[in-house]
């Protein structure tokens, strides 16, 4: 199998969620002399982005995203010893979290997966995150953007004070919000830069905005 065929096989393993097969395929790739960063960019992340496209087209659903992520992570684990030797190329750090008062995180976790696949480094603060924690993390990580998630009408109202606190603290990056009750109108009202209808939409909008900056 030549290098392109190997990369294609690894990409295919992500798209089909074959976490059991992808480890061997990644080892074969490294043994064949393919640089780890090429396997990451040209196979794992490429495959994950393809999964995102299929999700947007309505051909893939939440399970396919989750198994693809598992496969991608299994592949990254094989590459990790090589990847740490060279600093990774990243579009920047994105701080994300579910806002204070809200414990839901499936949507936020899917967003983290797709944002990582889009080439960002994700700093995931988890659930029930206060304004202070968002401000601190955005500062410490020199974040390009902050993503806020909420599932409920009662907790999405906590987005506004977080955005206010971030801006007051001098955060100049992008702020993106998402979650079941969120609309673009709400994003506009509370001073967020974008609204994401789902995880894939959020990753796309972030990448587009950051590359335009």
């Amino acid at each position, binding site marked *: 199998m030549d290098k392109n065929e190997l990369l294609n096989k690894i990409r295919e393993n992500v798209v089909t969620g074959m976490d059991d097969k992808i480890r061997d395929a990644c080892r074969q790739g490294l043994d064949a002399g393919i640089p780890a960063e090429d396997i990451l960019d040209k196979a794992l992340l490429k495959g994950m982005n393809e999964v995102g496209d299929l999700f947007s087209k309505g051909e893939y659903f939440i*399970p396919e995203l*989750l*198994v693809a992520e598992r496969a991608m992570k299994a592949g990254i684990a094989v590459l990790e010893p090589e990847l740490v030797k060279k600093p990774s190329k990243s579009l920047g750090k994105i701080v994300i979290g579910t806002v204070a008062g809200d414990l839901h995180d499936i949507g936020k976790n899917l967003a983290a997966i797709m944002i990582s696949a889009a080439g960002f480094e994700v700093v995931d603060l988890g659930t029930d995150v206060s304004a202070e924690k968002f401000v601190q993390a955005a500062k410490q990580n020199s974040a390009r953007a902050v993503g806020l998630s909420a599932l409920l009408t*009662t907790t999405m109202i906590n987005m506004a004070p977080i955005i206010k606190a971030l801006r007051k603290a001098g955060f100049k990056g992008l702020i993106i919000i998402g979650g079941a*009750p969120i609309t673009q109108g709400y994003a506009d009202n509370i001073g967020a830069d974008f609204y994401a209808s789902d995880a894939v939409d959020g990753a796309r909008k972030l990448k587009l905005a950051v590359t335009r900056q």
Partner: protein
Amino acid sequence: MTIKPFKQGADFEHLRKVLMRETTKGPVPILELFVDVDVMAEITGMDIPIDKATEFIRNFGWSNDPEVVLAGSRIMDLSLAFSQAMGYDYVTLTLLMPLPRTQSQLRENPQQGGKIRAWQNEHRGIITTRKEFEEFPWPATEDIEIFPLDYAASKMPPGMKVVSFWTGIFEDLKLIMGIENMAIKSIKEPDLLNDILERLTILAEVGVGMAAAHPATGAVLYADDMGFNTGTMLSPKFMREYVIPRHKRIADACHRHGKPFIFHSCGHVDALMRDLIEVVGIDARHSFQDNIEPVEKVYRKYHDEISIVGGMDVDLLARGTPEQVRKRTRQILEACAPSGGYCMGTGNSVTNYCKIENYYAMLDETRKWNEEHV
């Protein structure tokens, strides 16, 4: 604030005719999936321990805590008092079944003066392997408890019927497996999901059949969330293979007794609407959220085939003003009321984070509409 009832007395027969699209005349009825216990307690003035009652509901009556069970037993009286006080044609009650599900975590919301919400564990399920499935303490169909219907039958005022609530098989699948685990297993081990769904369907067929056969029951409200904001949780292909045919069996168990089968699902499930109508044979669909698909749009598409219930966005009820709610109520009624087959209500339920004055504005504006048009 004084809350006026929507109307005096109950007329379930009119509600039934609207649900079955047998009439385009008469008032637009009101119908909810459910109303949070603290909202019912606030409106009726009944004293009930909200935390214990919420725990009872969120854990489907599955508790070893005597205080929780006691609070649960009082929910029937609370629901009856609330339905009568507000002028509903029905009372919502559910049969009890000792099915273990992942436990909800109760938490106070500081934004609402400490009101309680329940949070489902989304990650960890009770059944994650074939072995756990085989060891699972499945209830027998004989364990299904019909007492709430007998109790309601002895207490309901004339004209009122029970809307018998049943938790859907896909909803229970998520509650037993955890959403994330269920999603992954749907690809890696679909046979496991198939076997769990089959066990749940056998229970649901019997439970829904018992409910529908009971003279106190006027309709069955079957709640099975299948979607999220932009699509179905699992692929329509999976749902068509594993879930929809079972929904049909459950709907048939209701229809054998001539009762309307109202289907509730949150989220964007348009990909499955033809299946729900043509295969399952639902009589009505409930839910609808403006940022997913406004109820008027759904009504235009499907009102020739099924009735449409709800659609007043819970977000507006929570954050809007009574004036905004009244305006939106009018918009919905202008689009959905004249041709019949529509019941006003929230897009999900009257949650404890809805403003009571907004809930009241929705009912009052509908009442005014009925006075003007009937």
